[in-house]
């Protein structure tokens, strides 16, 4: 017992966290505009999130300390306020777009504006968190979210030149007439979408909540790799589908509804049903995880009791946090702010913020007093430092690219 459910934790993080509103929007747009020229971001982003999750999971198991717990301990209160504030901002914006994803699916189904659905889907998320246990959240979201595999079916049916796809994943060829700054900003946004920070907070907290122990280290590594790799496969399919259908005609998946067009054209009703179910439950799973992640982060930072397995009475501050965060997200969402644009900005901001949490984590992973025998080895350090450099470069170029590309629009 425990091993299989640990693996399930990895899969739900993959489906609900890896594939969410961020991927649905950024992958479709990238494929439509740049064909296969941004596939490399999936490779970089996936390897990055595997390294990050593996480190966070190992720290959680070895020391019993969660991510924001150790961030505050290592940086001190004042300095740690920066990553905390960044994480809260990115998480709230992420929640706004995930709820928008759920509401937009309902708009397609009912033809009623997503703004009407917005408060209702938030209420649904609040109700699930209020009543359900951690296992329920985990299993239901992951199972139903698997419908998003429809993108893989569609990609296979469209039969792209796979040799070319593989080649461009390593040696990208930017289509003519596209500005470099816009291409660069799209790349930052994609990396932020693949490495969405809440996934790691959720993963680290989940490992503590499920009481993983030293024997789970291997499971942890397998989970991180399998789960994220599984998500990457779906992301490749999403980009390829848009590249095969939108790109040749110079079209854009301009709206959320537009993302389903190639699926429906290729697979008919099956494509539509798969998209609606998959998109709804992937964004719902992500909305659940990001609400919890925000409450986890704040409680770990200030030392309050936290945990989805606690009843509201046992962790009232934790409960208050996720309810307030949902309220704030609804207040932002119902203003009618463009969910597609907000998605691109949010994932770029997420990419920008990554080194601020990853750097202290890497320091703790090397601290013997926390880690004991599970301290970072040479390989983990080479990988960790390599990604820290990559992420720092991403942080440095985000703002200049944002401005040069005409605020992401290019």
């Amino acid at each position, binding site marked *: 017992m425990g091993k299989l459910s640990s693996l399930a934790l990895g899969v739900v993080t993959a489906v609900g966290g890896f594939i969410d509103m961020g991927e649905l929007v950024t992958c479709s747009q990238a494929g439509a505009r740049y064909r296969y020229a941004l596939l490399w971001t999936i490779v970089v982003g996936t390897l990055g999130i595997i390294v990050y999750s593996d480190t966070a999971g190992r720290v959680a198991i070895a020391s*019993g300390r969660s991510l924001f717990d150790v961030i*505050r301990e290592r940086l001190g*209160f004042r300095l740690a306020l920066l990553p905390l504030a960044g994480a809260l901002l990115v998480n709230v914006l992420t929640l706004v777009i995930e709820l928008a994803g759920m509401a937009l699916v309902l708009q397609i189904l009912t033809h009623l504006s997503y703004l009407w659905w917005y408060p209702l889907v938030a209420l649904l998320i609040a109700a699930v968190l209020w009543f359900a246990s951690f296992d329920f959240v985990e299993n239901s979201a992951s199972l139903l979210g698997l419908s998003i595999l429809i993108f893989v079916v569609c990609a296979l049916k469209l039969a792209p030149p796979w040799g070319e796809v593989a080649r461009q994943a390593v040696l990208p060829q930017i289509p003519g007439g596209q500005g470099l700054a816009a291409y660069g900003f799209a790349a930052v946004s994609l990396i932020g979408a693949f490495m969405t920070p809440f996934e790691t907070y959720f993963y680290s907290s989940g490992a503590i909540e499920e009481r993983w122990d030293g024997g789970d280290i291997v499971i942890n590594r397998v989970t991180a790799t399998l789960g994220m790799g599984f998500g990457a496969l779906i992301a490749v399919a999403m980009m390829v589908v848009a590249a095969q259908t939108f790109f040749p005609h110079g079209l854009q998946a301009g709206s959320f509804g537009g993302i389903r067009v190639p699926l429906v054209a290729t697979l008919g009703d099956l494509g539509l049903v798969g998209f609606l179910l998959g998109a709804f439950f992937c964004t719902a799973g992500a909305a659940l995880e990001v609400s919890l992640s925000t409450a986890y982060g704040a409680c770990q930072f*200030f030392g*309050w*009791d936290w945990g989805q397995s606690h009843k509201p*009475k046992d*962790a009232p*501050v934790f409960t208050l946090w996720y309810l307030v965060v949902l309220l704030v997200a609804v207040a932002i969402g119902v203003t009618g702010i463009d969910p597609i644009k907000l998605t691109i900005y949010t994932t770029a901001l997420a990419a920008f913020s990554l080194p601020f949490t990853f750097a202290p984590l890497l320091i703790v992973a090397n601290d013997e007093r*926390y880690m004991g025998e599970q301290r970072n080895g040479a390989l983990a350090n080479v990988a960790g430092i390599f990604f820290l450099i990559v992420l720092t470069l991403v942080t440095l170029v985000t703002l200049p690219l944002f401005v040069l590309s005409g605020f992401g629009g290019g």
Partner: protein
Amino acid sequence: MMPLGHDVLDKEILDRDGFKGGKVDDLLLELREGERPVVRAILTQHGVLAALLGERTARLAARLRRAVLGSDDARPIAIGWEHVTRIDVAIHIDLDRAQAGLSRSERAVWDRWISHLPWAHR
């Protein structure tokens, strides 16, 4: 020997049953004429952190706390240094968190907000 800033400050406080009781937000030193300064207590919760950020932030935080917790004139909690039993990745104390007053804000949030929501008492 261990450095206070590195090994005590900002660590989690666990009570005698292993339950969470906040973080070590600050430390209280006793200074007496002609004697060495001694660490007397751990300070936690109710404005200790906000005080570190300056007076204006402290006032703002106090107003926010009153709004959330009710008209409570809660002051920072001091846990006598003699109650610290062990220091590892957390600070272990030999008190019960409720008795030490460490659960006061959690209880206030429950009484004032969460307990009024439907099916809160299940």
